[in-house]
């Protein structure tokens, strides 16, 4: 049988998790550690994907990155087409995952004793160095937990992906979409196989991370 949806979902989720980390960790740090104008508004914006219906999110995202949309036109000019490609699925997964990562990581950063960071500053560490040598080493468990949640959310996304990437078999059809299609076509063996594979993957991931989490820093 065709395992393309599984491989595509893994690839999309991994890339999306990496992007979410790159974007979400600085965001979480800023929200948890800095005072700036518009902080409350930003904090509210970050969590909206959790509360909006996925199709609404997907719709706005499509308006934004579709070929006629403002971002779509800009990307089109440099020869990048996003909508209805696997890259759109990555963007969709990122949007769904970001609030989960940010909330977890922000709580982690807020839990780091600010006096430790201050002690590092008085010894002459730069802000960048304080983050890498003090803040992150003390908050990494929370960031990791956030990343796991982000990966699982990305892996399971249905609504946003369907709106912006479609469900093109062999191109943009991720595992959740493929299962839906198989069920619709009454291909229960295929649906069962993909569903069981999804469960196995997530359980293996959580078990592996459970071990990692017990490691002493």
């Amino acid at each position, binding site marked *: 049988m065709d395992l393309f949806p599984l491989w595509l979902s893994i690839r999309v989720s991994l890339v999306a998790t990496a992007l979410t980390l790159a974007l979400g960790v600085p965001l979480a740090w800023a929200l948890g550690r800095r005072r700036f104008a518009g902080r409350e508004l930003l904090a509210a914006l970050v969590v909206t994907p959790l509360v909006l219906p996925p199709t609404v999110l997907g719709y706005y995202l499509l308006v934004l990155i579709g070929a006629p949309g403002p971002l779509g036109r800009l990307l089109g000019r440099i020869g990048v087409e996003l909508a209805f490609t696997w890259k759109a699925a990555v963007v969709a997964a990122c949007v769904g995952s970001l609030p989960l990562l940010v909330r977890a990581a922000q709580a982690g950063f807020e839990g780091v004793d600010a*006096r430790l960071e*201050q*002690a590092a*500053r*008085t*010894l*002459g*560490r*730069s802000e960048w*160095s304080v983050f890498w040598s003090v803040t992150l080493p003390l908050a990494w468990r929370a960031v990791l937990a956030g990343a796991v949640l982000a990966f699982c959310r990305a892996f399971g996304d249905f609504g946003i992906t369907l709106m912006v990437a479609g469900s093109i078999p062999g191109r943009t059809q991720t595992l959740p979409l493929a299962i839906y299609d198989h069920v619709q076509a009454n291909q229960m063996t295929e649906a069962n196989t993909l569903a069981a594979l999804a469960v196995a993957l997530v359980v293996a991931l959580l078990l592996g991370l459970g071990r990692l989490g017990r490691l002493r820093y």
Partner: protein
Amino acid sequence: MTPLLALHGVRLRYPPGFTLEVEALAVRPAEVLAVIGPNGSGKSTLLRVLGLLERPEAGEVRVGGRAVDAREALAERRRMATVFQEPWLADTTVVGNVTLGLGFRGIHGEVAARRAARWLERFGVAALAGRRARTLSGGEAQRVALARALVLEPGVLLLDEPFAGLDQPSRTALIADLAAVLREDRVATVLVTHDRGEAQALADRVAVLIAGRVRQLDDTARVFQTPVSEEVARFVGVETIVSGRVLSRAGGVTRVEIGGRTLEVAAAADPGARVRLAIRPEDVTLTLPPEQGGGSSARNVLRGAIARITVTDAGARVVVDCGFPLVATVTPRSLGDLGLVEGMTIAAVFKASAPHLLPGLAPHTP
């Protein structure tokens, strides 16, 4: 003389909803400046602003007379060193901790090790160089933290309640050792503390911070002997503050009537004026009442009954009712020798120079 480090027009809110407002505060070269005040007065916030760890909402921090902007903060911060109440040692060896700050400044290896060894020696902890920081006692850890700060040869040393977490013997020993180091090396230092004894032991000048404002800034002895207000007087250890009326002024002696008694005071005041007298408890001595009564012209001798005796670690605090409550401190020895008990009649004696007249009381007649 250009100050090394100064605050100008600094304003900053600090939790829970107080405001620090410092018009001007300057650290002079080679001096030890103590900032004292009760808990919540904004002392630590003030030190964080001086140390470029927190930016004021208004005003500026000047280094060598020039305002520091955000981009220069790191470079300027590297010319300072700070020790907090917690030693905040890294989980490595003692010598590893002392060389930590040097490493960030590009000083490594043999040179760093030699400098670290010298400072561990000066703080009497050279023998601990190889120990893990987490195995140290509180006093040892704070000695290592001070060595780690001073090894950087900072332009300004900032100390935030560095002795507050220590037991009494470690504290006394460390204050003496630090005083010796600061006297010898003339490191400009700002010491933040709620303990006036630490300020007296270490500081050349004292700033009294109450509710976010500097109420008095002067040489240490002057702040303790001539506080500018009742709040400052209370904080620097004056226990007796009483109001009275000036009867006369003659031959350098002001006679003041308080609670039906007449006191002789060296400070000048106009006859008829209402004044407040501040008397430090250690300036009052207690003796058995003289048979003939009265004392010499230079001294005040007040007879009164002992209202209360509170035993402290340094002796006892005795409240004598001589028309007004007068507080004296006595040593444990005098407590026994005089056989002091509550209710007995005693003579409280103090010099005419002991009472300080607090300014700021509007002259009025009752």
